[in-house]
């Protein structure tokens, strides 16, 4: 963007910046298809990611049908089962959660919340989405190639990922998976640079870093981390692709394949695991930090109370982001790596619990002495606290190296990571959609349908994953196509598995209510007005709703206060927008 001189009033003088430096669309195609408007790109990202999410949801149904009612559904053989779990995992982690939080919420909220007109590199931003879409197409294409998608598990561990004992290992599946990931990373890099540079360079006047809403802090930190973490996955994917196609031995030691010696030697399977988890652990926080940020804003807005301990929240976000790069090998305690690493990684992993706990305390202390409106976004935020605390605490089992030994690779792990990085962030995504849908469309989502969606999703998901820990504690391994004949597993555990499957079907089905609500409210929803939640952050102060390209009309807003002036004593309303100048009364802003 151009460097805009400020007028005497501190505002951006409109005459100098007519139309800013934005490329404005000239046709329907450039407005809605090849759009360079971050808000349109956000919607494109979100709809694509939600579509992938529905596919991944159906895959989870299929695998749960096999686990709950083994052998009843003859089309789910072992090959198909492993393909379903692999695609479910990879889709959810990368193509749904990462894409939605950064590509979806990042694109929509960053420019609006910091008072910018758009991302700083709109063309790269547009390309980012089309690369993402291409990555999705390549990934989904693997369902239709000979041999089907890869069944290596979402961790894609070599050597099995590229040998013949694994579905797709010697066929197309693994190749398409690796290529799709590489395309995704290229696309993400274009988006991620945009998010980071926009936050650093394009904040409107008065929007200091320490006045930014925590949503922006969360997405910013996560984008920065993703730019550092994804390259590790990228090189891992390139090396594995070479191993698979060119006969190199990056990850392939001397080994036999189905009784026959392979012409490989010297490679290290553990090298891939280190590369994968150097990406994979930060990835957990790439998903979690935007959720942390968003939920902070949901809680503050709907409890009508300033977020408690804002500065501590920012430092905790940054501390978690930094620490998450030195904990990766806690996924590898029983991988056969040098066992002395365990001391280091257990210590760093448990230290990360401290800033994470601070965040939880500050959320619940924001509720304390608040004025809690139990709106649908608030309900989702409360459910996030419950599921995140539950899943975070079981992380203290798995992070504590020796406790991980019996629990690793059991259903306990599956229950833990679904609770903490599946259920909890997805509850935030739902809450955020109920919260910002009125800004995106100008209409409210239906409240009754929203509450139905909320209660079934929250209680159902808890009923799925809480008992699952105990099957794992008992020793039931994860990634078992069939565990009916394990000697120590009592029949009651199989009954529990059937119950979990039924709950998964119910929770999945209620998502249709949500999809219906999204579509129906677009036409029939109650008109929202510009600021239905009476929120203080900038995106609710746009002159028009939904905001047009350029966001702010002729003048960008000027920021005078932090994002959390709720229930300020003496103020006329229970919120003061960030762009409202300080009145004669003494400002109570303590954070700047």
């Amino acid at each position, binding site marked *: 963007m151009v460097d805009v001189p400020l007028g005497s009033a501190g505002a951006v003088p409109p005459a100098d910046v007519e139309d800013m430096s934005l490329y404005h669309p000239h046709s329907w195609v450039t407005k809605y298809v090849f759009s360079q408007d971050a808000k349109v790109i956000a919607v494109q990202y979100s709809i694509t990611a939600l579509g992938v999410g529905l596919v991944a949801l159906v895959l989870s149904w299929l695998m749960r049908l096999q686990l709950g009612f083994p052998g009843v559904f003859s089309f789910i053989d072992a*090959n198909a089962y*492993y393909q379903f779990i692999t695609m479910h995992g990879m889709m959810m982690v990368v193509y749904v959660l990462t894409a939605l939080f950064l590509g979806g919420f990042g694109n929509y909220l960053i420019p609006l919340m910091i008072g910018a007109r758009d991302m700083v590199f709109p063309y790269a931003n547009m390309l980012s989405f089309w690369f993402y879409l291409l990555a999705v197409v390549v990934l989904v294409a693997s369902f239709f190639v000979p041999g089907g998608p890869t069944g290596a598990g979402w961790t894609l561990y070599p050597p*099995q990922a590229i040998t013949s004992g694994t579905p797709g290992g010697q066929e197309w599946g693994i190749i398409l998976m690796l290529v799709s990931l590489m395309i995704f990373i290229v696309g993400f890099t274009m988006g991620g640079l945009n998010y980071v540079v926009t936050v650093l360079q394009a904040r409107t006047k008065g929007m200091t870093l320490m006045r930014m809403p925590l949503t922006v802090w969360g997405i910013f930190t996560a984008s920065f981390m993703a730019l550092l973490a994804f390259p590790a996955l990228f090189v891992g994917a390139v090396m594995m692709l070479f191993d698979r196609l060119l006969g190199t031995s990056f990850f392939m030691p001397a080994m*036999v394949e189905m009784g026959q010696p392979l012409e490989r030697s010297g490679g290290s399977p553990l090298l891939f695991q280190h590369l994968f988890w150097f990406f994979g652990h930060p990835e957990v926080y790439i998903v979690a930090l935007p959720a942390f940020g968003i939920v902070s804003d949901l809680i503050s807005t709907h409890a009508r109370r300033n977020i408690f301990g804002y500065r501590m929240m920012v430092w905790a976000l940054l501390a978690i982001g930094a620490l998450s790069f030195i904990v990766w090998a806690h996924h590898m305690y029983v991988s056969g790596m040098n*066992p002395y690493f365990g001391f280091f990684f257990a210590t760093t992993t448990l230290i990360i619990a401290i800033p994470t706990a601070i965040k939880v305390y500050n959320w619940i202390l924001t509720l304390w002495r608040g004025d809690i409106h139990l709106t649908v976004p608030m309900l989702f935020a409360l459910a996030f606290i419950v599921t995140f605390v539950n899943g975070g605490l079981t992380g203290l089992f798995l992070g504590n190296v020796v406790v991980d030994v019996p629990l690793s690779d059991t259903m306990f792990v599956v229950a833990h990571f679904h609770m903490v990085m599946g259920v909890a962030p997805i509850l935030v995504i739902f809450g955020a959609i109920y919260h910002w849908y009125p800004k995106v469309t100008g209409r409210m989502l239906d409240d009754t349908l929203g509450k139905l969606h909320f209660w079934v999703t929250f209680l159902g998901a808890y009923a799925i994953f809480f008992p699952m820990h105990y099957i794992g504690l008992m020793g039931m391994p994860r990634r078992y196509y069939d565990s009916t004949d394990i000697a120590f597993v009592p029949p009651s555990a199989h009954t529990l598995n059937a119950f979990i499957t039924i709950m998964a079907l119910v929770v999945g089905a209620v998502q249709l209510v949500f999809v219906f609500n999204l579509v129906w409210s677009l036409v029939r929803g109650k008109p929202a007005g510009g600021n239905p939640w009476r929120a203080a952050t900038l995106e609710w102060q746009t002159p028009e709703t939904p905001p047009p390209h350029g966001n702010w009309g002729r003048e960008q807003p000027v920021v005078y206060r932090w994002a959390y002036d709720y229930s300020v004593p003496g103020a006329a309303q229970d919120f003061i927008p960030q762009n409202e100048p300080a009145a004669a009364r003494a400002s109570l802003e303590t954070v700047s």
Partner: protein
Amino acid sequence: MAVALILILIAVGSVLFHVVSPWWWTPIASNWSYIDDTIIITFWITGIVFVAVVLFVAYCVYRFRHKDGQRATYEPENKRLETWLTAVTALGVIAMLTPGLFVWNRFITVPDDATDIEIVGQQWQWSYRLPGADGKLGSSDTRNVSTDNPLGINRDDPNSQDDVVVEGGELRLPIGKPVKALLRSIDVLHNFYVPEFRAKMDMVPGQVSYFWLTPTRTGTFEVLCAELCGVGHPQMRGTVMVQTEAEYQAWLGEQSKKTFARLSAPGN
């Protein structure tokens, strides 16, 4: 009101489930009860935190839910409270980590009198090699694998001649004797997992990993593979039988006809 009640039910219900549910770990059969103890400590600390947080949220929802004319308290920070909470959290973390690291040190420090045994994974079965009369295992290399030498044992190593090879069969261990399990794979990743032993470790082609344990209970236990190793992963099972020393020695004596030297002798 309903929301607060449901939150209370979740906290209470989770604790009740923990107490009354029939699903709990298998009765232990090794010396690793320290691990179970650490899990119990962790359950207590995390359980208390979980219940406290959820009940506090329930209280807030009940006490501070919106009523006409109510206003929230404006309080951006409270240094004392934040410091205090951070300190308590750090203490809780130390209380879990310290015993954890001590037990981990034991877990990776093999006693000098432990007997080496070898466990070899391949798609999709377990094989074992036990030292013969010399008490030593010979060296091995995946590049030696052939039809008459399925584990890739080094023919030229004098220590390997009396090694007892159990291919695709049952592992036997004497009770009360520490055992160091050397873990090898000749194809892909596997993981030797006996829930009753608590210990587990991946086997990685190209390297040897290990764990050690002392069996403390006789009986037959199921061996599972705990690292996804291809489509046959859930069928990769076996059994391990823990016997008294006398029974074990009697069995080992019978195996002398299955030593590596005899099995790989020409014309066999």
